[in-house]
């Protein structure tokens, strides 16, 4: 995002270069990027062959590809969450939407065994395109529900989405009768574990969503409108923005991203678990957004930052696992990283630092 240009008094000769340097140092993406780099450098020492990428059967294999692939659902959720947070909102129903869309897609596709001569073959119960559309539609409905509660009834975002967070998983369990739905249909697995041109297919999904979102917020006025709503909702409304429509849009968008993430997860594990799919994903997504430098107070947002945030979380998980540290420690380390990053990003901390430096 646009960095604030520092207005520091300096001699005219050095002004240009100094301003450039200060701008770079104050760039909002500097800290998240630095955190990611530190993690990657740490990995380079701790994990042998971390940066090695090999080609097997025409697919790229390696830790980096693995991290990108596994971060895909989180990245999608974080992209959607960024826009919601930019409008001063929050969506804690992401995990429930993941469970719902995953369940719907898995139940509709299902898969029945049909004998073709002597070779068994699985066919989808409902055409795959239709099933995915239905799952996506469910996600959109969830988003619409959240958006109407926030913008229409004017509930606080956290309560509004708490309703779906609690009830959504219940609905998903109601659909599946509390069972885990297993999918037997080869083409569906391509979504979450297939490869296209040597890279995991999920990466293309993330790239496409990112590109569309970037175009929407950069090439149209939408990004500006969303920021305006986040900075001052009343002023935005008085300036003639249709804030309610905008807010409904961001919640629908966030749920759509969550729905896609749900399909990726379901396809990857070849089943839908209404109880555990996407558990705590909303919290990780909020973390990713915060780590990426977007304030929970709304206003300025950075989609790139949120992507970096998601990668930080996934790299951290990967590092902890590959260091042979028990996975349980993951949560402790994660929380400490969050504390450190949040505190270092707070304006109070920067003020204290500046006072020290002066």
């Amino acid at each position, binding site marked *: 995002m646009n960095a604030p240009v520092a207005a520091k008094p300096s001699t005219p000769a050095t002004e240009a270069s100094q301003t450039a340097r200060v701008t770079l140092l104050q760039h909002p993406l500097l800290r998240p990027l630095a955190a990611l780099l530190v993690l990657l450098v740490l990995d380079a020492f701790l994990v042998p062959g971390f940066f090695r990428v090999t080609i097997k059967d025409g697919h790229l294999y390696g830790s980096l590809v693995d991290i990108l692939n596994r971060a895909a659902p989180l990245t999608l959720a974080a992209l959607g969450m960024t826009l919601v947070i930019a409008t001063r909102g929050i969506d804690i129903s992401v995990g429930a939407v993941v469970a719902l869309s995953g369940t719907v897609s898995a139940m509709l596709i299902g898969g029945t065994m049909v004998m073709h001569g002597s070779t068994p073959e699985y066919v989808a119960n409902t055409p795959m395109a239709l099933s995915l559309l239905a799952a996506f539609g469910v996600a959109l409905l969830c988003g619409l529900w959240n958006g109407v509660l926030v913008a229409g009834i004017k509930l606080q975002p956290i309560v509004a989405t708490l309703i779906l967070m*609690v009830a959504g998983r219940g609905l998903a369990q109601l659909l599946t009768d509390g069972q885990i739905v297993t999918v037997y249909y080869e083409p569906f697995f391509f979504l979450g574990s297939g490869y296209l041109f040597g890279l995991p297919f999920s990466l293309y999904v993330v790239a496409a969503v990112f590109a569309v979102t970037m175009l929407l917020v950069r090439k149209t006025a939408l990004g500006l409108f969303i920021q305006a709503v986040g900075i001052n909702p009343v002023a935005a409304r008085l300036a003639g923005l249709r804030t309610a429509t905008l807010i409904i849009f961001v919640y629908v968008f966030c749920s759509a991203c969550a729905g896609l993430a749900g399909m990726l997860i379901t396809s990857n594990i070849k089943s839908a678990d209404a109880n555990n799919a996407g558990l705590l994903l909303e919290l990780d997504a909020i973390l990713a957004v915060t780590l990426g430098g977007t304030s929970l107070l709304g206003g300025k947002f950075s989609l790139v930052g949120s992507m970096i945030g998601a990668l930080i979380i996934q790299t951290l998980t990967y590092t902890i696992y590959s260091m042979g540290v028990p996975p349980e420690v993951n949560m402790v380390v994660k*929380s400490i990283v*969050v504390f450190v990053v949040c505190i270092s990003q707070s304006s109070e901390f920067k003020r204290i630092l500046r006072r020290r430096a002066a």
Partner: protein
Amino acid sequence: MSAQVNAVAKPSLTAAPWFTAAITVVLLVAMLGIGGAAYPGFLSLQVVFNLLIDNGYLVVLAVGMGFVILSGGIDLSVGAMLALSTMVAAWLLQTAHWHPAAVIVCVLLMGACFGALMGLIIHVFKLQPFIVTLAGMFLARGLCYLISTDSIAIDQPVFVALSQTQVHLFGGFLSPGAIIGLVVLLMAVWLAHFTAFGRAVYAVGGNETSAAMMGLNVGATRVAVYALSGFCAALGGLLFAVYTLSGYALHGQGTELDAIAAVVIGGTLLTGGYGYIAGALSGVLVLGAIQTLIAFDGTLSSWWTKIVIGALLFVFCVVQRVLSKKA
């Protein structure tokens, strides 16, 4: 209820803070009535007492959460803190063989310090309570796993005796945990409505800037509120440890949401400064009554609990919203 009927003529009735709280009580009575009409044996004193016995820990948690929400914040770490308390208590009792009294004091202190630390971070660095307590939640859960990934059974005589004691009252019985929950609630009501601290909490939740301009120490109030919530979560954890006689890192998952839901259903607004601490009890009892009704029915599956709680939250929020619009 008669006072309410008398006051109908006044236009400001629905705007009164106690009105939404009263709706919850009416709803609770209605639920118990429906249960009594539909299922024989439902409408007994013991069923109501069982609600308290099964949810005593949640009452304590909701009381702490109530203070945080009244002050305009939120505490997502209480469920994890509950688990950490059961874990630390179980470990100190079973592995370190501490005296039960020392264990209780130690766990309560730990909870209060944990909460105070989060409050301090929120205040000093002006961070969002949501994100700080979220990190606190991860930290507390992670610390649980550092102690042990398995559940630890408690067979310490005092704890076992506490879990088996029945206090007979009006022909029914309560557990010590339920009584502690009620005592905590009474003390909290006194703290909220009859002390300077309580008034400061309402003032900070209502408008932080004007509270500061009035000369209230916003920072100290906030740290105290989170310390209180941490303390309540630790106490809730002890009650839960007695109730289940075990410590486990997966105890109380999602309890923070139950506590928030109970506070909201109890008529407290999440924006802060509006509501009653006593609403925590009616909120928890409504949640418990839903579960009991579904258990009594026997044909409904457990996930209906979630759906009904979601629906109830929706109705309550909309009703609150409509009422506050009228005001």
